[in-house]
């Protein structure tokens, strides 16, 4: 079976500034990839190249069997939902959804009705975008992209302009819609939680390439390098070769051979029904957030790092080799 998308050795540079460096990945039909990385790392450039709005300096992109590297955005069968809904303000909701479908010859009234039902906006079909809320507009933008029946759907931080409540609601809703319809998608975000919700595979993007391309579980169990550890905040980076899962660090000694470090309690808060201590570990010059089992007024604390849970990047799980 051919891949939905195959990206081979894609590079992009603006002058001496390398944005993408020999990037490779491929997705099977129906796969969902989240690309997450810090702002300005080149995620959007990658998406624009995949959509055909920018062209790579070198490398090839295949959609199915077809090499689309040099094809214009107009002729690629790719859908793109931007950060802003970018609905055409002079068209009604229905006309917006139909616009691309009519141009690509995939228009049918049934499909439009089906999409309007899917986005729960059937009643707004004759309204103009300015009459809709931000979340509704983004749903219409998604329906408009899906109406063209793209081979792959690209989403560039589509929820970033929404308020947190609406954002959370739309995340689940969009993910369900993509799953139901078996749509191959690439979702770009700088939000780690969003990346995990929207993709089965997560590409941690930095420095022109993927630092790790794996499932959320793998990233949690075996982060590939110090960048991944620092970006996801699931572990404490002890040095450039070693890390320890945060859930293994405690404020009381439970095992022999634990490494003890001095920490200063900066603040306490509550999250997911648990007390959380925000501490500063001077030895590592790092701030951490750890579950605090008992109330504490402030000042110094000892944190205990069990030696058998200190892992090195090149070792497999369960083989702590920290000396």
């Amino acid at each position, binding site marked *: 079976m051919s891949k939905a998308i195959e990206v081979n050795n894609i590079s992009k540079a603006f002058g001496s500034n390398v944005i993408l460096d020999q990037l490779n990945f491929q997705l099977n039909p129906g796969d969902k990839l989240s690309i997450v990385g810090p702002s300005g790392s080149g995620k959007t450039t990658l998406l624009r190249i995949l959509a055909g709005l920018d062209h790579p300096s070198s490398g090839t992109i295949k959609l199915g069997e077809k090499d689309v590297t040099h094809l214009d*955005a107009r002729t690629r069968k790719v859908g793109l939902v931007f950060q802003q809904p970018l609905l*055409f303000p002079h068209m009604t909701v229905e006309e917006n959804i139909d*616009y691309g479908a009519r*141009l690509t010859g995939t228009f049918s009234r049934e499909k439009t009705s089906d999409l309007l039902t899917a986005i729960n906006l059937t009643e707004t079909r004759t309204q103009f975008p300015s009459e809709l809320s931000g979340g509704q507009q983004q749903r219409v933008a998604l329906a408009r992209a899906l109406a*063209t029946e793209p081979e792959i759907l690209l989403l560039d931080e589509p929820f970033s302009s929404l308020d947190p409540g609406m954002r959370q609601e739309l995340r689940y809703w969009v993910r369900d819609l993509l799953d139901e319809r078996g749509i191959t998608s690439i979702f770009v975000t700088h939000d780690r939680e969003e990346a995990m919700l929207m993709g089965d595979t997560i590409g941690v993007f930095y420095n022109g390439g993927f630092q790790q391309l794996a499932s959320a579980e793998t990233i949690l169990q075996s982060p590939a390098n110090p960048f991944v550890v620092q970006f996801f905040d699931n572990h404490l980076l002890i040095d450039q070769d070693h890390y320890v899962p945060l859930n293994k660090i405690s404020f009381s000694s439970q095992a022999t051979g634990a490494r003890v470090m001095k920490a200063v309690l900066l603040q306490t808060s509550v999250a997911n029904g648990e007390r959380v201590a925000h501490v500063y570990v001077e030895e590592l010059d790092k701030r951490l957030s750890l579950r605090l089992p008992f109330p504490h007024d402030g000042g110094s604390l000892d944190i205990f790092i069990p030696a058998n849970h200190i892992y090195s990047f090149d070792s497999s799980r369960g083989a702590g080799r920290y000396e």
Partner: protein
Amino acid sequence: MKYKILFYIIAGLLFVSPVFVLLLQSITTPWRFQTAQEMNVQLKSFAVLWSDPNLWTATIGSIVIGAFVLLFNFLIGITAGKALALYSFKGRTLMEALLLAPLLIPVLAVAMGLHLLMIRIGLADTWIGVTLVHLVPTVPYSIKIFHHAYSQLGKPMIEQAQILGASERKQFLTVELPLLKNAIRSVTFLTIVISLSQYAITAIIGGGSVVTLPMVFFPFLDTANPSIMAAFSVWFAAPPLLMYILIEGLLSLLPYSQTPWRNRA
């Protein structure tokens, strides 16, 4: 609601009432407040106006020249405005300054130089020459207006149309033009009014062979008869209005125009 009423009061005072007074004056004898004169309805002022043998030639000449000036303004304004707003290229700021430069130099000075050029290329004393010289005081404004309109429209909106599969022509007709309507309206009024008001440069380049409304209008300034002046002003206001109605009609033919027959809930 309060602001709406305030808007109507201000608009009524500053725009509607002067036009009403002008229309009234054009069909009445001169009248002054507290002079015990009666306001008598008359059409003599229009009779004087229509008695001018050049009136129709000048009116049609002004409309034709105005229409072509408008067409060139659309062509140059939309292309240059789009390039300045959406594309990044070396020397863009310089290019923008150069395109706006004609506004900084007195039009008469430009017209003198252009007159020599027109004579050399055989366009002096022709309506084409006059049309071209009318571009000098109008094109910079059009470029500025379309530049602003395209900046507001934004590159992402155009890219969205591309992603959805629109060809360049389709994208221009279905997305760009409908969203440029307000700019098109502004350019229409501004261009026609500026073109219609040019006396000196039309006289220099037209050499008297090309007759436009101001050339007929100016001799009437000596009459000091407010009724005749009002009648001429009403006549003068008609071409821009006609052109505006024509353009508005054309704009309503654009795809996705908001017309009464469009399906609304």
